[in-house]
């Protein structure tokens, strides 16, 4: 997503990376109870993912995350007038890039004089699933994280 942000910045597409909370708390990476912890986890995440753009932090109780739907790794795109035009319950760079490209074309078509009206679309996008890396991440969080995940999704 960092690369997507850099690619489309020259076309006046802003990007906001917002850290919410620990995905699967465990003994080594506990549930967040202070903003200081939240800053520490966000710095760790920035370094692991190599994010070079600013990362912003939701408030401790996740009010912003809730306002936008509380899905685990959401992405949204807003139009120039502040209207939500894309919502994804998972952040996938291919899906987001496809959507940005489409909406930039809409802007160009409007500028060239085409009269256009929005309509709703539902579709299923696909992401790469790496279960091995996911369980390695759970293990780094601690046995509790692994146990709770296996209990929730046997």
């Amino acid at each position: 997503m960092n690369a997507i942000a850099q690619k489309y910045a020259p076309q006046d597409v802003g990007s906001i990376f917002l850290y919410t909370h620990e995905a699967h708390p465990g003994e080594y990476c506990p549930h967040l109870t202070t903003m200081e912890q939240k800053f520490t986890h966000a710095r760790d995440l920035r370094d692991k993912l190599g994010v070079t753009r600013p990362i912003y932090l939701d408030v401790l109780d996740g009010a912003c995350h809730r306002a936008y739907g509380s899905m685990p790794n959401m992405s949204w795109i807003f139009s120039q007038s502040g209207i939500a035009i894309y919502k994804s319950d998972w952040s996938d760079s291919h899906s987001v890039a496809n959507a940005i490209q489409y909406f930039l074309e809409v802007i160009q078509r409007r500028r060239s004089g085409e009269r256009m009206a929005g309509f709703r679309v539902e579709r299923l996008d696909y992401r790469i699933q790496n279960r091995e890396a996911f369980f390695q991440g759970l293990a780094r969080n601690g046995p509790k994280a692994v146990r709770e995940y296996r209990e929730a999704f046997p």
Partner: protein
Amino acid sequence: MTIAVGQRAPEFHLPSLDGPMTALSDYRGRSVVLVFLRHLG
């Protein structure tokens, strides 16, 4: 109550790791991608 596609995005003011605050309204007039990140291991 959460928003849906087609609705106006709720405003927020949030701190950054490096100090400065940001607001969604800072991006007025631009398209914006908002990515929610969670930490895992």
